[in-house]
């Protein structure tokens, strides 16, 4: 088993998410994409995959469970045979029976019956990127020729539903979506989409502008989530929203904070580039430019493996700065107990440094949601009071 230096003992967490870039290539060209090399048709070689998983399974970071997320580029571009070989290889190297869950985030445009058969065989978790009806989706999620992709994605959704294969949808919220909570909810109902996650369009990597910049849209985001919450609650069991499950979970379970913030602890999330480059903390960092942190590449599976990451000087610098940022958040932000220091990638891309605090991501994805959830619970506690006093509802 590889060992790590004593100085790093106790600072890393167990590896829980391995983001693997089978290919950086994407067959479409979303306006808000943050990946810099999405025109590269490189594929991760079998030798790299082998070195990677040897390093994972024999290394000091693995625990009894691991999610492998094939992402960062359109994963289905690599082809089904690629994954057949990759999954077999991983199974062969997994000699200690780590519980591996494969997960694929796809734009859906290449999904066919053969994929679903394959997913079922390996119980692969599927996320489909879909921003809502065509007037919202096609505005940003376009083909390389500038055409819309909504209809192709809906075809994939229909196929998944016909096969009764569970999936979730990731919807990127843009300025235009904020007034469309009702349209989005109706769209999910009409298309049998029962699990949804929202990502706010952010400044990340190559995507250096956001439609949320400029005026403060915090109130508009809160209005969106308030309306959506009311819709979700008035249609019980129809649509589950990751953001609500997450924020209510944090508020209602004080022990949830013990889980910590995987983006600020080394090695809980490891991202692997197509040539075996290794990164940790926020997955969006890999492939982005930084002189100080040498482009966030902290090692390579072919040289040092996972254990080598924590000895690299650029890793030590990044880790120190991230911890400084978390300390500043703890000191200055009243939302800290529920947010636990935010996302290092957003701090870096928006503020130019990990050792900072407030970001658009904080304001729109964290604080706005917490405010809405607290308001909702405060209403509930009033209702409880009324019930205790046997007051009419």
């Amino acid at each position, binding site marked *: 088993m590889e060992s790590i230096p004593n100085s790093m003992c106790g600072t890393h967490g167990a590896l829980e998410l391995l983001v693997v870039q089978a290919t950086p290539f994407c067959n479409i060209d979303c306006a808000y994409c943050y990946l810099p090399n999405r025109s590269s048709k490189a594929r991760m070689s079998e030798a790299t995959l082998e070195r990677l998983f040897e390093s994972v399974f024999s290394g000091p970071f693995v625990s009894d469970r691991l999610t492998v997320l094939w992402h960062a580029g359109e994963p289905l571009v690599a082809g089904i045979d690629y994954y057949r070989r990759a999954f077999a290889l991983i199974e062969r190297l997994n000699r200690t029976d780590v519980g591996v869950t494969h997960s694929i985030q796809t734009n859906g445009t290449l999904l066919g019956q053969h994929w679903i058969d394959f997913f079922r065989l390996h119980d692969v978790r599927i996320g489909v990127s879909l921003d809502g009806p065509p007037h919202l989706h096609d505005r940003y999620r376009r083909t390389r020729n500038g055409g819309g992709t909504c209809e192709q994605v809906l075809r994939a959704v229909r196929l998944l539903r016909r096969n009764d294969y569970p999936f*979730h949808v990731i919807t990127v919220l843009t300025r235009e979506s904020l007034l469309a909570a009702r349209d989005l909810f109706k769209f999910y109902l009409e298309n049998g989409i029962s*699990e949804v996650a929202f990502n706010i369009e952010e400044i990340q990597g190559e995507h250096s502008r956001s439609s949320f910049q400029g005026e403060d849209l915090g109130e508009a985001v809160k209005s969106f989530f308030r309306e959506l919450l009311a819709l979700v609650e008035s249609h019980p069991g129809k649509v*589950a929203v*990751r953001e609500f499950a997450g924020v209510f979970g944090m508020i*209602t379970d004080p022990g949830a904070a013990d889980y910590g913030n995987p983006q600020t602890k080394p090695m809980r999330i490891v991202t692997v580039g197509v040539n075996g480059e290794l990164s940790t903390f926020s997955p969006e960092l890999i492939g982005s430019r930084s002189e100080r942190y040498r482009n966030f590449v902290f090692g390579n599976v072919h040289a040092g493996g996972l254990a080598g990451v924590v000895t690299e000087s650029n890793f030590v610098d990044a880790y120190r700065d991230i911890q400084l940022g978390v300390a500043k958040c703890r000191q200055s932000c009243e939302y800290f107990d529920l947010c636990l220091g935010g996302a290092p990638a957003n701090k870096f891309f928006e503020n130019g440094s990990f050792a900072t605090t407030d970001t658009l991501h904080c304001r729109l994805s964290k604080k706005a949601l917490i405010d809405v959830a607290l308001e909702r619970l405060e*209403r509930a506690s*009033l209702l409880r009071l*009324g019930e205790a006093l046997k007051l009419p509802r």
Partner: protein
Amino acid sequence: MSNKATTAFSRTAGFFARRFGWACAATLATLGIAPHADAASSEPPSAQSVQVNSIPERLRIVRERLGTEGLQNVHHAKQLRFTQWYKGR
């Protein structure tokens, strides 16, 4: 009460509860003015009501008032199959 009046009252009751404590809200309630907490309302509370307490204080009060059991019932906790990292496109 009309819906509009009910909502207005909810806000007032919430404001009083946060500002002066639950006893005051209860007093209002016993006067026959029920704090009709419109659970699924998409209406924002008044600006005052969210400024009265800090987030940690509001969190503490909510946890205390609702208790673990009540809180678990507030939102349906369907087991989701999302991956842990959540910012993919």
